């Protein structure tokens, strides 16, 4: 643990990113307390520019932009993290089996990942939302279903690489079963690069959810960053703050996940120099 921390401290940008992610999560959890008012509360001050009273301005219905941004975390973060977690679970399982078994199982798996990678996730998710009504779990399911090949490929490569290393051979000589070697010796060492891929999937998922909401394919009663940009599109000529702030928030969130994931993976890598 101390070693991981030391590794992280050597990467200031990564460390800041991880703190931003944690801060976002915390603010999202405490949104009802922290946000200046209810994001759905309509006000008299319509389309007000940023200033005292409303730091980031108000939208066409007089709703506070900052309050909406803070409540938007409660959509983007869960969607991002849950879809990445689901994709990682599938990817790790499939990749580990393919890498460990090899042979025709491995071949079939490689073909399968190719099949999943040609389907454009956004278009599938958008058509699905348009057909059956918007739902967050659908977005999560589509992202998980289409992005597991990425971690699976990384996992497979790691398993194949690690299997041939001396330490695994040594354990094998002790007469320990292949299953236990895979779970106890190989998996823990293969996780770091897979985790970095997971962080990228979180970012992709946040962007995808925002894109759907931007097209109006999200629950209209739920405040989200993409929804805000959808409203901002109608007021591009009058109210720049309706577009600039939600977009900036998305960029910061996605960038933090990407950079933080890389840093965490580097810090967790057991072969890294202390």
């Amino acid at each position: 643990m101390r070693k991981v921390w030391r590794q992280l401290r050597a990467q200031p940008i990564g460390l800041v990113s991880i703190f931003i992610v944690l801060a976002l999560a915390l603010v999202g959890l405490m949104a009802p307390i922290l946000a200046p008012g209810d994001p759905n509360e309509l006000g008299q001050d319509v389309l007000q520019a940023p200033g005292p009273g409303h730091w980031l301005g108000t939208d066409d219905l007089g709703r506070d932009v900052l309050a909406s941004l803070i409540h938007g975390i409660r959509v983007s973060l869960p969607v991002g993290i849950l879809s990445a977690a689901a994709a990682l679970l599938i990817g790790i399982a499939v990749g580990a089996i393919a890498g460990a078994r090899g042979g025709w199982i491995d071949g079939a798996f490689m073909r399968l990942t190719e099949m999943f990678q040609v389907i454009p996730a956004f278009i599938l998710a958008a058509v699905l939302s348009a057909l059956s009504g918007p739902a967050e779990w659908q977005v999560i399911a589509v992202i998980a279903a289409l992005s597991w090949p990425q971690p699976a490929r990384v996992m497979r490569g790691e398993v194949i690489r690690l299997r041939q290393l001396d330490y695994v051979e040594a354990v094998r000589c002790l007469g320990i079963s292949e299953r236990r070697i895979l779970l106890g010796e190989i998996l823990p060492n293969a996780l770091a690069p897979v985790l970095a891929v997971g962080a990228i999937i979180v970012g992709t998922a946040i962007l995808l959810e925002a894109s759907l909401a931007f097209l109006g394919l999200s629950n209209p009663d739920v405040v989200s960053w993409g929804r805000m940009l959808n409203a901002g599109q109608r007021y591009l000529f009058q109210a720049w703050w309706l577009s600039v702030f939600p977009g900036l928030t998305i960029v910061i969130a996605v960038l933090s996940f990407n950079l933080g994931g890389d840093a965490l993976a580097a810090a967790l890598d057991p072969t890294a120099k202390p």
Partner: protein
Amino acid sequence: MLRFLLTRLLWAVPIVLVIAVLSFMLLHLVRGDPVTALIGDFPAPPEYVARIRAEFGLDEPIMTQLWRYLVNLAQGNLGFSFANRMPVLDLILSRARITLLLMVPALVAASVLGVIMGLAAAPRAGSATDATITGLSLLGHSVPIFWLAQLLVMAFAVQLQWMPASGMITLRDTPTGWQAVADFLWHLVMPMTCITIYYVAVVARVARAAVLEMLNRDFVLTAMAKGLTHRRVLWRHILPNALIPVVTVVGYSFGSSLTGAILTETVFAWPGLGSLFVSSIAMRDYPVLQGIFLFSATAVVVANILTDMVYWLVDPRLHRRRVRVVANA
């Protein structure tokens, strides 16, 4: 290599089949009642619903329906768009042309710029130039493309008023002749810039990594030792090798660039696939939505095969291998 391409082509058949089945399932299973999917969510008299049901064979077993759907697809019949009063395939193809008009110049520009940025960054790894280029390309990965489009509109159309905010041509006093071309190009600048900025990020990152890897290769050391100038080594020895991963990433990201184009179009009201997609969502024109999914997934498969072919053209080693095979025979 020819064999490789042939297997790729053969492998595309089951993939396209799976896409078609998925597309069928979208409309027939997800939607619950496909009748509403066919006529839209309009209140329809029960006799009409019954007639549609019989006409499209919706009372038959699902496998029979799937088979008929696949046969129709094979004949190029993707259904009929009631909202636009024309066959879905014709509609999609006419709009796809307009999207390509935007996408192809943007991708070409992004590739050229990205390679130049990669060539500039890699030999100075760790320098300020390199850090800036790496940082920019990282940022590009994290920006919602439609937000980038909104920023461009706000800056250049609203604030500075240099550029038209939307559309493909000026609708009032539509110009003719060369002026029409100029007018079109003028409208193209902003949406194209948006997609270019976005994809430069992707290309530059890959190009930088590829050039960096080549710098440490023996053949580069040899070229240097022969006394060639840096410039010559970079352009004649490293660039051709570094182009291979660039071609791969541009070709294989066709699906995501199509998505990017669709989202960009909605901001600029560019009348391509993206605008069709959004209006079909609003009108609940389900056959068109299904068609766009089918079309774009198939387009990705085709783009991947084309990429493999270009890959073969770009990589001289693959040619030599073929020559050797011929010589052995």
